[in-house]
């Protein structure tokens, strides 16, 4: 019995040493090596693809953000923020109470036949249609569904085009110029066939701000 206990203890000790050595290799050396190369060769991307306007960081081109009007009463948790007509609006977001909260990335996880999701989708369609002055049938799917991460930086080109007239009107700009801005910021599928066409909302809105002066 003593012998088998001693054998087990020896085995456990070997296992622990194996774990610690492999922790040094894969948990310290490996990430530091990647970090070194990343910081040296891809500094901007390794630190979050931060976007600057007038020298100030306004966000990450990979993370979506809200473009809402200021809340009337910021301390009121029940007040839902209203979209600002001056900006292109991102997709609905399930990250945090107001959406686009980077500390709470995630999806709604509502099932495909959940009545709550049906209601939410119908409400969104009505809201987007009224907000942009179009008919509900014109509202594209990405405008009425929350993304997986809740931080989706992109919208579909259809949703961007839908917002052109409303943004131009709110900013007293020529709709043709705004439409051109959208066209310039529309990215096709990568390599022509990967994923879906996208419009990066933050980059589009920064360009819009510069256009408005």
């Amino acid at each position: 019995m003593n012998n088998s206990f001693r054998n087990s203890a020896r085995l456990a000790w070997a296992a622990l040493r194996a774990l610690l050595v492999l922790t040094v290799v894969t948990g310290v050396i490996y990430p530091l090596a990647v970090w070194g190369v990343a910081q040296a060769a891809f500094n901007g991307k390794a630190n979050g693809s931060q976007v600057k306007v007038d020298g100030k960081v306004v966000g990450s081109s990979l993370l979506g953000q809200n473009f809402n009007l200021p809340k009337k009463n910021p301390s009121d948790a029940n007040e839902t923020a209203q979209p600002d007509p001056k900006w292109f609006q991102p997709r609905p977001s399930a990250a945090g109470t107001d959406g686009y909260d980077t500390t709470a990335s995630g999806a709604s996880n509502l099932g495909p036949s959940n009545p709550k999701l049906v209601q939410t989708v119908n409400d969104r369609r009505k809201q987007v249609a009224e907000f942009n002055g179009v008919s509900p049938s014109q509202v594209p799917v990405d405008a009425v569904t929350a993304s997986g991460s809740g931080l989706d930086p992109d919208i579909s080109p259809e949703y961007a085009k839908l917002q052109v007239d409303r943004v131009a009107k709110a900013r007293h700009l020529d709709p043709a110029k705004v439409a051109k801005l959208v066209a310039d910021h529309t990215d096709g599928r990568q390599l022509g066939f990967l994923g879906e066409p996208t419009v990066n909302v933050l980059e589009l809105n920064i360009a819009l701000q510069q256009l408005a002066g």
Partner: protein
Amino acid sequence: MSPILADVLQVSALIAALALVYVPLGDYMAGVYSSKKHLRVERWIYRSIGANPDTEMRWPAYLRGVLAFSLVSVLFLYLLQRVQNHLPGSLGFAAVTPQQAFNTAASFVTNTNWQSYSGETTMGHVVQTGGLAVQNFVSAAVGIAVAVALVRGFARSRTGELGNFWSDLVRTTVRILLPGAFIAAIVLVACGAIQDFGNWHAMTTLTGGSQGMPVGQVASQEAIKELGTNGGGFFNANSAHPFENPNAFTNLFEIFLILVIPFALTRTFGKLVGSVKQGYAILAAMFVIWLGFVVLMTWSEFAHPGAALHAAGGAMEGKEQRFGVGGSSLFAVSTTLTSTGAVDSFHSSFSAFGGGIALLSMMLGEIAPGGTGSGLYGMLIMAIIAVFIAGLMVGRTPEYLGKKIGGREIKFAACYILITPAVALIFTALAMALPTPIHSAANPGPHGFSEVLYAYTSAANNNGSAFAGLNANTDWYNTTTGLAVILGRFLPMVFVLALAGSLAEQRPVPETAGTLRTEKPLFAGLLVGTVIIVTGLTYFPALALGPIAEGLS
């Protein structure tokens, strides 16, 4: 270009990339497990462990190595989380609670990576990089080691010796996973995945609001998370998060990483048993199932049945614009048919049939192509069952790769295929029978049942993906899913290694005219049928209550 045509091209590009590396990677891995030479860094590691890498182990010794290493890993990872608040780089997070720390430790050590926590608000730098990411490497290496031991059981005769666990563990980590993950991590950083230290800082957004800027060793962890079929996200949103999966190219690249080792291991298997054609037959069975499921999933998601999806005009709830329906469907099938469980879109909001396909993918035992190592040994067990069924039909003693499949071998194989469904279904039944656990479900009706069934299927099969509506951070789910991952990982390994030992002891049977040709397409077809019938029927009643009921209502 229509989305469907683009998706066909996307899937074709993936298959072409996998085909390109199949032979070189498979042969390279075969070399790793048959080479007599040790690298200098490996010698240094063996010295620190105090193990002789040239000692041959019989199956009980090999198993003791697996279990001791895994037990120590669970304890170490548990402790690391429990003292997190005292560690540097903790980002101000508290120690993880005992139940959740147990659940997470068990889950990462078993290659499951079920997560009842949310990464960005729970885990600091040290736990993520020095704890969780380390298990991403070594749990994958343990899986491959066990698979290689089984392959040696077929390849060797009259010995009972299966190789050396420490050598297999270290070689897999140093020669396969580390170089692969390093290259993959650099590719991911180049595309926008982050790799930085420090603290989160607040940014003032364009409209004057505030948003936190995440930091972390994301690229290095993401690379091994996919390559080792682990799946535990750095962030709560997992591979849907733009910092883990920045664009459509990285999405396809991550799917490639998930599939590359499990598929290539069939070549390694063929090389080691001395007939690459045997490997092709296994590969063919895996590939047919994978492609069939990709087609079914993609069709279901593009057709988007379901009241809410119909109202929205498409199945984009829980999906990212840059991946679209096609990229998300491909990822969902690949992650659930391996033991990965990473997600780039949220399965709970998939169409009922789509969600059902993800569930069925895991129920097949994750063998098409399956997890790193676990996919190969799972499929070889199914091959033994297939040979046995064929043997019964013609009234011959079944044999596979020159080994007799006798009563002892069939018992081990049968235990293997029974244990995982038993764990999944018994825990699901308990959760449904008890008054409280069902309250964790976020959706009403059959979908709520699917959430619970999905959770235990995912845990018992060591997948780790979720119908994430379920609030799994309760004492009940943390404890039971923690137990399910351990039972679902190590009991099958016991049977695999016992089987390997038994096969290695046998003397080879000479091939005769009556031997079933297991390298032929007919056998690959028989294997696919066996997989579908054996595992599909086990779960059919449960599937009928969940996704099928929801899809038909």
